[in-house]
């Protein structure tokens, strides 16, 4: 492959990544370093300050960050547990029924999300549980897909081998299926964690005053109070948290694997 063709193949992708990922991040970072607006506008152009980040050390924001972490872990744990059970159930169905069941699980993603959340709001009292349930509800189709694909990819001969060695169904699950589905479980947990850290719709529609996440808070700062630099600083912190979940967890898993070997 010569230079022209490699540029032609890589160029558009690189432009897309730069235009849609890197440049918005750089702009966000820059906005977080402006001083708040005096008079008209959202910030004071030409200024540079770390004051917005210092504001984040405020106990109110820290408690919001704490709840955001809690929300991430709760959504990850609950979605993993439910998705695993659903994944096992799906794998036990005949192929045609699997398709129907998968379709039903994916319905929330194809129907209007807001409509579904309003539906949930009708019967769930606002509060912590409702906010978490809503977020689990939103991420669950992805988690189920991840787990389902992982379990379905397990070689069925391994279960037969375990059976032939004397294992009963529970022992096969505990000693073969479960450990071999760890990669899918890990991915589903990571997905749930990233989703829960960025939770917005659930806490907004179904959470109470104490169930404010960083995403809800930065939305308020930006669109209710017009404090764009502070909202941008909160967004940067949120991105660091989500980025840590995206990159940090696999790194820990790799270290554990190396130690294991």
């Amino acid at each position, binding site marked *: 492959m010569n230079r022209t063709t490699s540029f032609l193949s890589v160029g558009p992708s690189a432009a897309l990544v730069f235009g849609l990922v890197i440049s918005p991040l750089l702009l966000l970072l820059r906005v977080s370093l402006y001083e708040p607006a005096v008079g008209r506008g959202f910030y004071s152009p030409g200024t540079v300050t770390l004051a917005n980040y210092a504001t984040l050390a405020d106990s109110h924001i820290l408690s919001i960050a704490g709840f955001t972490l809690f929300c991430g872990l709760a959504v990850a744990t609950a979605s993993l547990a439910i998705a695993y059970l659903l994944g096992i159930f799906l794998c036990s169905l005949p192929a045609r029924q699997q398709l129907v069941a998968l379709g039903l699980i994916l319905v929330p993603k194809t129907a209007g999300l807001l409509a579904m959340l309003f539906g949930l709001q009708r019967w769930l009292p606002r509060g912590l549980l409702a906010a978490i349930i809503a977020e689990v509800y939103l991420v669950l189709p992805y988690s189920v897909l991840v787990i389902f694909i992982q379990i379905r990819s397990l*070689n069925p*001969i*391994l279960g*037969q*081998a*375990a*059976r*032939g*060695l*004397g*294992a*009963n169904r529970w*022992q096969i699950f505990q*000693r*073969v299926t479960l*450990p*071999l589905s760890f990669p899918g479980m890990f991915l589903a947990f990571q997905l749930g964690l990233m989703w829960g850290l960025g939770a917005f719709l659930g806490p907004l529609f179904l959470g109470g005053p104490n169930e404010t996440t960083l995403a809800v808070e930065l939305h308020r700062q930006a669109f209710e109070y017009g404090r764009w630099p502070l909202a941008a600083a909160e967004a940067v912190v949120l991105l660091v948290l989500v980025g840590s979940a995206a990159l940090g967890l696999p790194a820990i898993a790799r270290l554990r694997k190396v130690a294991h*070997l």
Partner: protein
Amino acid sequence: MPHTGMSLPIAGTAPFSGANETIRLEEVSFGYGSELVVKDVSLTIPAGAFVTLLGPSGCGKTTLLRLLGGYLVPERGRIFLQGRDVTTLPPNLRQVGMVFQSYALFPHLNARQNVAFGLEVRGRAPAIVRQQVDAVLDRVGLSSEERDRYPSQLSGGQQQRVALARALAFEPPVLLLDEPLASLDRHLREQVRLELCRIHRQSAVTTVMVTHDQEEALASSDIVGVMQSGRLLQVGTPRELYDRPLSPFVARFLGDANLIEGRRLGMNPTALVLIRPERVQIGSNWPGRVMAVNYHGADLVADVQCSDFVLKIRTRAVTELAVGDAIALDLPQDNLWEIPAESTPR
């Protein structure tokens, strides 16, 4: 006399009596959908025998093995292991070790843990597990470094040994081997085959192996059963099957075969007469002309046109033969075998 669907003695041992049988199949049939892939198979295997089910792909031999292991339940017939009816018993309650063609080693467990699996799920004490695992790994010759490796870090031959050790660790009375040598290269296959025979001799476990390789079957087994289209065509010692097959299919499947109509040799006109190429001698009675010569290192294989039939002969490579040579052949009477007329679907 060869047997079909019957019990047999192991070569060199006392003739089989019902008291020492390990496996008995009684008219076992199994199908996928409406098509039967195993048809009315009856077979009795004495304790300690090495039995090979031999046949082409799709003949039902692996299905029969899975029926023995309890992975499938027959539609008709009964299966007995050590005199106990196990027809509907699941694999975990059968006490049968199985080595799968792909080995089916647990990828998340190292060799030692794989071998310990069957003992642990049976609730054996950890000290006994350790002791038995080491003993069986010694027996299959896996080195101490290899024992801590994961399947992905082991070669094909090493994985095969682990699979064998895992199947033997809980000391089952029956060992099933599903094409255990198929994934190995030619050199390793012979080496592992010899090891399988050695381990079988040491453990004296009744072994049933499935293969499509006739050399493997003849070289390893006390008893060979040849299958075609779900039926067990003939059961016998390797020598019986090779020398005295009861059908053209068995004759051809076990090796090169000259099958000549009996009338051409002045024998039973309704029968086919078998003579193996290596039993044809260069002599004086049947004049012919060499049509093709293939050099095989130690041997030469030649096609010789004799009046109105072609004979394949195998002779030592030191013999000088060339296409077009006029030679004469002898067909020693002792080496001719009439295949009964009623079995002549070819």
